[in-house]
């Protein structure tokens, strides 16, 4: 009998092997493993895990079905709350959401909720189990801006209620950050993202790519000329931030967004595609979030020696523990308590090195984390040919600047009510990174759900 305090381990691709390919790292559970892990759930009456989930999936409910081997039923339970379970099962920070509330976690490992969700969702994709569709449309037209996690969730929820939803996407592919940001080895595009979006299409949602709202048309025009009665803005995060240090416009300095977009969206890692990428031989990724880990692990797979340069210590790394662990296993080197001062450029304008300085942790700052302070005289130089800046993003101004009466805050994020996504403009709702600044897929999905609720409350009264 297996130790009930320990979770059923999940099979992964060998670290050495995967450091050289873009295949998915984690293989996930099979049915036996899933049923065994599901048996660890004690089906709490007052299930704390549900409160940890931004979209409030009935977690004990679906796990109870897995325990019995009724995977299709389990999928239906998840489908009541989430339109994208195969994605969430892979990229949600479960350890700080549902799983950290699990009673099992007090004495032993919490139930592997994320891996169980992924198993159920993959099973549904493999067996082509369709989500429940609305019987008929209610005739109300809703526009959703952006086909990332918040937009897809909002569109899916509204379509289930019978709304005629059109999603407008600025890029040439659907999925937003799921396709341009998160790499293949963490979230397969053909096998998972495309298929999950197919399911949203099956609900009756229409999609139009290559439409940049604020440029190709505006929200006001969508409402006045194309008769959309409500709009949900899920346009995502925007312009990448840079440090403002000397040498930053040199060739070989990229934002993580650019580096990842070239590799993920444009498939530059595949020689059959035209878009080039300067992979680099020795790469520094500046930053410590999930995006930094994604960029580092991508550069590693493209053949580089990769260093994460982060100004605080390991404890403060904002990335998920699993991502840091995977990065280390694969051979990414962590230069912690280290901060760039200057990028050195050769006579052709290319990066040749970087001066960094050692840091120490001082008093806690506004974020509650201990503030990193430079150690005087500790500068040293590292030789490099590529620097990837992964310092977060600031909101894209395209929509706010072209929509009359849409209020933004001091950080230039769109102001929206948390519970229903209502903005300062009538019949316009918003959610996801466009409202919160860069956050997670599941928080964006939660905001998409809230927006759908807000839109339904408004239009069902009409």
């Amino acid at each position, binding site marked *: 009998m297996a130790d009930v305090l320990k979770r059923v381990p999940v099979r992964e691709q060998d670290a050495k092997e995967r450091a050289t390919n873009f295949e998915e790292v984690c293989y996930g559970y099979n049915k036996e493993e899933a049923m065994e892990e599901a048996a660890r759930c004690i089906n709490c009456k007052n299930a704390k895990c549900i409160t940890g989930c931004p979209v409030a999936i009935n977690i004990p409910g679906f796990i109870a079905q897995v325990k019995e081997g009724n995977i299709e039923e389990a999928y239906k339970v998840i489908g009541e709350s989430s339109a994208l379970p195969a994605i969430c099962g892979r990229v949600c920070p479960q350890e700080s959401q549902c799983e950290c509330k699990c009673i099992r976690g007090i004495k032993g490992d919490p139930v592997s909720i994320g891996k169980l969700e992924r198993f159920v969702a993959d099973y549904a994709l493999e067996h082509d189990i369709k989500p429940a569709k609305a019987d008929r449309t209610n005739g109300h037209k809703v526009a959703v801006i952006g086909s990332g996690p918040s937009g897809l969730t909002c569109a899916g929820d509204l379509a289930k209620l019978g709304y005629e939803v059109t999603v407008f996407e*600025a*890029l*040439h592919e659907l999925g937003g950050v799921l396709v*341009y940001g998160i790499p293949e080895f963490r979230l397969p595009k053909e096998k998972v993202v495309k298929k999950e979006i197919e399911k949203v299409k099956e609900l009756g949602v229409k999609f139009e*790519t*290559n*439409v*940049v709202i604020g*440029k*190709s*048309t505006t929200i006001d025009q969508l409402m006045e000329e194309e008769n959309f009665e409500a709009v949900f803005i899920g346009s995502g995060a*925007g*312009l*990448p931030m*840079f440090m*403002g240090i000397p040498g*930053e*416009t*040199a*060739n*070989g300095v*990229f*934002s993580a*967004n*650019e580096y990842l*977009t*070239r590799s993920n*969206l*444009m*498939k530059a*890692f595949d*020689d*059959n*595609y*035209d*878009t*080039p*990428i*300067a*992979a*680099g*031989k020795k790469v520094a990724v500046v930053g410590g979030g999930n995006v930094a880990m994604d960029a580092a692990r991508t550069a590693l797979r*493209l*053949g580089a020696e990769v260093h994460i340069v982060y100004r605080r210590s390991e404890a403060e790394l904002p990335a998920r523990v699993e991502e840091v662990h995977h990065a280390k296993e694969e051979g990414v080197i962590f230069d912690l308590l280290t901060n760039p001062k200057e990028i050195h450029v050769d006579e*052709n*304008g*290319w990066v040749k090195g970087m001066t960094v300085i050692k840091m120490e942790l001082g008093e806690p700052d506004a974020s509650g984390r201990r503030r990193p302070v430079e150690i005087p005289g500790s500068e040293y130089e590292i030789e490099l*040919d590529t620097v990837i800046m992964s310092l977060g993003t600031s909101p*894209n*101004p*395209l929509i706010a600047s072209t929509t009359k009466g849409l209020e933004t805050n001091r950080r230039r994020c769109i102001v929206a009510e948390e519970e229903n996504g209502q903005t300062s403009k009538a019949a316009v709702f918003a959610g996801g990174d466009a409202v919160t600044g860069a956050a997670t897929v599941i928080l964006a999905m939660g905001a998409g759900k809230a927006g759908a609720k807000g839109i339904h409350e408004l239009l069902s009264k009409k």
Partner: protein
Amino acid sequence: MYKILKAEKLAANIYLMEVCAPRVAKHCEPGQFVIVKMDEKGERIPLTICDYDREAGIVTIVFQPVGASTTKMTNLKAGDAFRDFTGPLGRPSEFVEEDVEELGKKKFLFVAGGVGAAPVYPQVKWLKEHGIDVDVIVGSKTKDLLILEKEMEAVAGNYYPCTDDGTYGHAGMVTTMVDELVEKGNKYDVCVAIGPMIMMKFTCLTTKKYDIPTIVSMNPIMVDGTGMCGACRVIVGGEVKFACVDGPEFDGHLVDFDNAMKRQQMYKTQEGRAMLKLQEGDTHHGGCGNCGGEN
């Protein structure tokens, strides 16, 4: 899909296409650009808008093959289609927002170099349609490479073609034509210079001499073109700007052209290509012979 209604070779290495893209045609203004992607595997290529017909939903683009994707694009014919065609992107030219009466008091000089005649054309046409005649200098290496001549002549107040080799029009660089016009006593309030970086740089040095405020249109490397990737950053007045959302037009007297030229070479020059090949080993996108190092 975005259908190609007309495909024409304007000169050696310069191509014009009319593309059906109603949303872009309806909203585009002079100064803006589009991003096209030929097929699934192609690059996203930023191209300036040369003309548009709002009613018919048609946008005209002009391009020069410089990389693998644009080289493949030269094979497209009327009846073929682009997989993706996005826009209009970037900000319209400043004068579009200005009061027409005030505009009428200003004397404009347009300076186009090579394929830069294409983005200059809709600006000159817009001004003509608003009753404003402007002076237009168009330069090229030689007579055969001069494009859109008939069209430009029809909308320009005064049209001054120049060729570097003296085979047509004024013999010499566009900058010498600027000198000549100013020395003849012409006073200009605004200069708009669009063309290769080096031509814009030297035009700006010339207009600086005469204190003529000058606008240039930057065409750096881009990926998404919507403000997400930051590839297109240019230094303007010591500040980093994103050409796709802050531009593409900037005050030419503040642009750091040397940095911009180096950045443009990233995937282009011999050095850049060699470096890429070195860095990428077997994965180098090479062998097309068209990275454009010769430009």
